[in-house]
């Protein structure tokens, strides 16, 4: 798979570390139920999935990648930092 890193361009997925579902915001401190959901439960859809990839062997940016997990088509990649500061 090739991931279009906004800094480094199209790079092989093996340069990245994967960390799963990127749609879940970290809940406020102390909310045990919300934190349980955040840490453990996943939609795990078959189809388009937004997910975190970390360019470990590159620029060290965390990306939010939109990818179809049924076809492995990579649709889009943006900097997680940019989205988080919106």
């Amino acid at each position: 798979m090739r991931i279009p890193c906004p800094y480094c361009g199209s790079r092989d997925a093996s340069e990245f570390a994967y960390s799963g579902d990127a749609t879940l915001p970290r809940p406020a401190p102390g909310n045990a139920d919300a934190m349980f959901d955040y840490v453990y439960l996943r939609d795990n859809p078959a189809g388009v999935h937004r997910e975190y990839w970390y360019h470990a062997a590159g620029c060290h940016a965390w990306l939010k990648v939109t990818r179809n997990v049924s076809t492995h088509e990579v649709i889009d990649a943006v900097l997680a930092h940019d989205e988080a500061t919106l």
Partner: protein
Amino acid sequence: MRYSLTSLFRQTLTGHKGWTPQWRDAAPKAEYDIVIVGGGGHGLATAYYLAKEYGLRNIAVLEKSWIGSGNIGRNTTIIRSNYLLSENISLYELSLKLWEGLEQDFNYNAMVSQRGVLNLYHSDGQRDAYARRGNMMRLNGADSELLDRDGVRKLYPFLNFDAARFPIQGGLLQKRGGTVRHDAVAWGYARAASDRGVDVIQNCEVTGIDIVDGRAVGVQTSRGVIRAKKIGLAVAGSSSRVAALAGMRLPIESHVLQAFVSEGLKPIIPGVITFGAGHFYISQSDKGGLVFGGDIDGYNSYAQRGNLPVVEDVCEGGMALMPAIGRARMLRNWGGLVDMSMDGSPIIDRTHVKGLYLNAGWCYGGFKATPGSGLVFAHLLAKDEPHPAANRLLLDRFRSGHIVDEKGQGAQPNLH
């Protein structure tokens, strides 16, 4: 027809005209006592044990494709119970004991072959971890032996002992571990369950779960509505999708695990070897193919295929451990859809919906568990309470923190 050398001879003389379908290709009835969703190894085994051990007959197994089309036919055929945690050893050891009598029990030769599973260690730290694991296995009634370097060399003289990046120091051996002809397990269970009255229904995809007042009452399928008093889900990598039909989110991600087979070669590897310094394990089938695998690709996937980096990673591990396989050719490579749970261990439990039961989260370890999983899930379905060998593998363990994390990787499924 009972399978035996006698029946084989008799059929040979009559041109094999008398063999009948190994299982009835049943059409769905309107209602069953228990519907098992998923005609893979676990689903078929569950149905078999429900019939055999719990005396239930009015059971259907629904398979969206053809039976055995999932992970039961896509794995590396290894059986073992060499786990660290009692919660897992008890289940896998139950399973191993069932494997040991399975063929006589269901009258089908699945070629259960206990030629030993050897996990290599390459450092003092790994040795200590394997010592603990070996002790835990003994504690739970499994067999284990801690070998030193010479002990490993005696078993596998052609491994790379002398020019290794991470030299072999020894290994943890489970002699009762081994391999099984994987497809035959699905067929054997299907045949034996069918003989006991279970309806094995192929090409029947579940598209909905009917819930009335918090109780599951049936399933919508591509072949119509089927009412059921109890529904058991055993759909491995599709668990999240099917559970979503009942409004559940699971502590599971679906990933792809690749496996490989070489061209047929004269036997060179008697048992199963697992490399301890990389992702590689290998055995050799009775047809001569080297059957090997490694790590999951590491990203969510429903594609049932993986990519080159993992192929390379696995072969690098193989060539680090046994440079004698360099000229053997990889013949086929495929991917299975695995249900990676958040702690790396399975979930066999009731759900918030009455009458709906879950068997999922097997990660890459589902095949070896097949008989045990079937038996404990049958117990759960029949008795509505967990089997003693699986009474800690429950869904609420994530909430309470009683997680069963063999590797200590935390809630990161691609690291288990």
